[in-house]
């Protein structure tokens, strides 16, 4: 983009055809090999999760006393667990629990946090003060401890774990949206929109929201990574997905008891968590660099 001052003194911006901010960002993400790697892994994991019933070689719940704790082989690539269930199939099905938990929890956090934060930033005054103090209070409790406490009181289940993680992650988005709105409110174009007589709701939704979306998207991507680890942690502790339904965290919980006899039980679910979280982190980092207006 080249900005030139024309004789009349009006700044004109020469933009190539098709250079919308969105396309520029996509190109910037695609120019980063690490971000592309993250994106590809994410798509693969998502496809595995969606098509689990067709991709998984065995029923993830089918036990077989003839195949208890078998090491990885041609028949069972990842080996079998303590009741003879195929670990590859369970790992593939586990992607469903982990991905949906990560995405749903963050959707809850964004859906609640962004409107609250925008309202606080736009209205200001006592409402902002109250929301600000509430956010401080929630952020004062370490993430996982608050999620554990919430999950404990709500009762152990995958759905409640998602709610607990979502609620715990909400203040991050409240704070982010509030800060962004405060910055945007001082801009000339918001002032102009107000001067023209737009109602506050329209200014917030039509003018401010599209402008604060990029940082929210970056934060959301990184938050999914954190939420997947949190879900795995809660499931590992027995507060998430309940057995026998497969989830990476609960598979690791069981694996720890058979570490001497069947170490492969602990290897693959861990690698699955690591790769998925790594992919979200790489993609989120790439997205942040690509959307950074300073670059």
């Amino acid at each position, binding site marked *: 983009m080249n900005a030139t001052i024309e004789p009349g003194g009006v700044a004109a911006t020469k933009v190539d055809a098709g250079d919308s901010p969105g396309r520029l960002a996509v190109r910037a993400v695609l120019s980063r090999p690490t971000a592309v790697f993250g994106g590809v892994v994410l798509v693969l994991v998502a496809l595995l999760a969606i098509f689990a019933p067709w991709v998984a070689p065995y029923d993830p719940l089918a036990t077989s006393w003839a195949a208890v704790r078998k090491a990885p082989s041609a028949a069972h690539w990842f080996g079998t667990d303590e009741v003879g269930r195929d670990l590859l199939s369970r790992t593939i099905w586990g992607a469903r629990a982990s991905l949906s938990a990560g995405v749903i929890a963050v959707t809850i956090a964004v859906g609640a946090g962004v409107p609250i934060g925008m309202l606080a930033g736009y209205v200001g005054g006592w409402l902002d003060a109250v929301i600000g103090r509430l956010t401080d*209070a929630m952020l*004062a409790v370490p*993430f996982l*401890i608050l999620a554990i*406490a919430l999950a404990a*009181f709500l009762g152990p289940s995958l759905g409640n774990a998602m709610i607990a993680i979502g609620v715990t992650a909400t203040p991050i988005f409240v704070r982010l949206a509030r800060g962004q709105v405060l910055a945007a409110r001082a801009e000339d174009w918001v002032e102009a929109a107000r001067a023209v007589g737009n109602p506050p709701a329209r200014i917030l939704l039509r003018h401010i929201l599209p402008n604060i979306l990029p940082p929210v998207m970056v934060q959301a991507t990184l938050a999914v990574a954190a939420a997947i680890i949190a879900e795995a942690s809660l499931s590992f502790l027995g507060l998430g997905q309940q057995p026998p339904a497969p989830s990476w965290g609960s598979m690791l919980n069981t694996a*720890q008891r058979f570490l001497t006899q069947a170490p492969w039980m602990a290897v693959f679910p*861990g690698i699955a968590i690591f790769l998925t979280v790594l992919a979200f982190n790489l993609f989120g980092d790439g997205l942040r660099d690509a959307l950074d207006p300073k670059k």
Partner: protein
Amino acid sequence: MLSFLPRRLLQLIPTLFLVSVLIFGLQQLLPGDPALVMAGEEKDPEVIEQIRKQYRLDQPLPMQYVYWIGGVLQGDLGESMRIRQPVSQLIAEKLPVTLQLATMAMTFALLIGIPAGVLSAVKKGTAWDVGANVFALWGLSTPNFWLGIMMIFLFSVQLGWLPASGYVSPFEDLGQSLAATVMPAFVLGNAIAAVLMRHMRSAMLQAMSADYVRTARAKGLHERVVVLRHALRNALTPVITLGALEFGTLLSGAVLTEQVFSIPGFGKLIVDAVFNRDYAVVQGVVLVTATVYIVLNLLADVLYVLVNPRLRA
């Protein structure tokens, strides 16, 4: 400084108040009659009646809070339903164990994270930089309970060098205590080392391009002196404060690490309490954790002002 501290202390009051309301409110999430749920397996009407009386569940909600917070302010966090011990006593017993683990973890994090960050900034764009960044990504993406399990497999099951679980107090046997805590402390410190490395790298890069570093170089000082005496000293300040904030991560991580290594600390206390539906203990642990975290944040702020002469005026 004189006006800063009281103002900051005053800000703590509403935050602490809301944290206490939040934690008190948790028990409202319990489905059905809390007394019935708290009584657990035994549905003895006498026990239920006692719980109702003890927690004043027959009174309106705001009054229940007033009684609860009144007790908390006097150090009474309630009683464990299962062990029949005051919650404050339980926490006082378990806290030193977690503090030992946390201190060792922070030592690991500083010893790995700071040099890695400095190296990566000084050798920007080289293999060292790439290596340090890969390490940081690995640390941020590895769930620490899985790392713990893998380390147990390698160092306890395969090599037999270290005990797989358990805890020995350092006052009993220092050697055994270190042997039992070195793995969990490393696991716990690993993720924080990654965060510190990233902070250190960006702070160092900023410092290295500052005027005073150029001046130091122009004076003909040895590069090592420039890096260590001039750049590092200035870059370390924000990193130390950010490090203090990582204490929350440490406490969260301790819950899982203690579970994996069967260490009877703070984290194990909350997990056991969750499964025994010992809600007073859960509330007590969360309250103490939040308070410790808030106080540490305050200390970090004060430290930041103290070491930064420009803010002291």
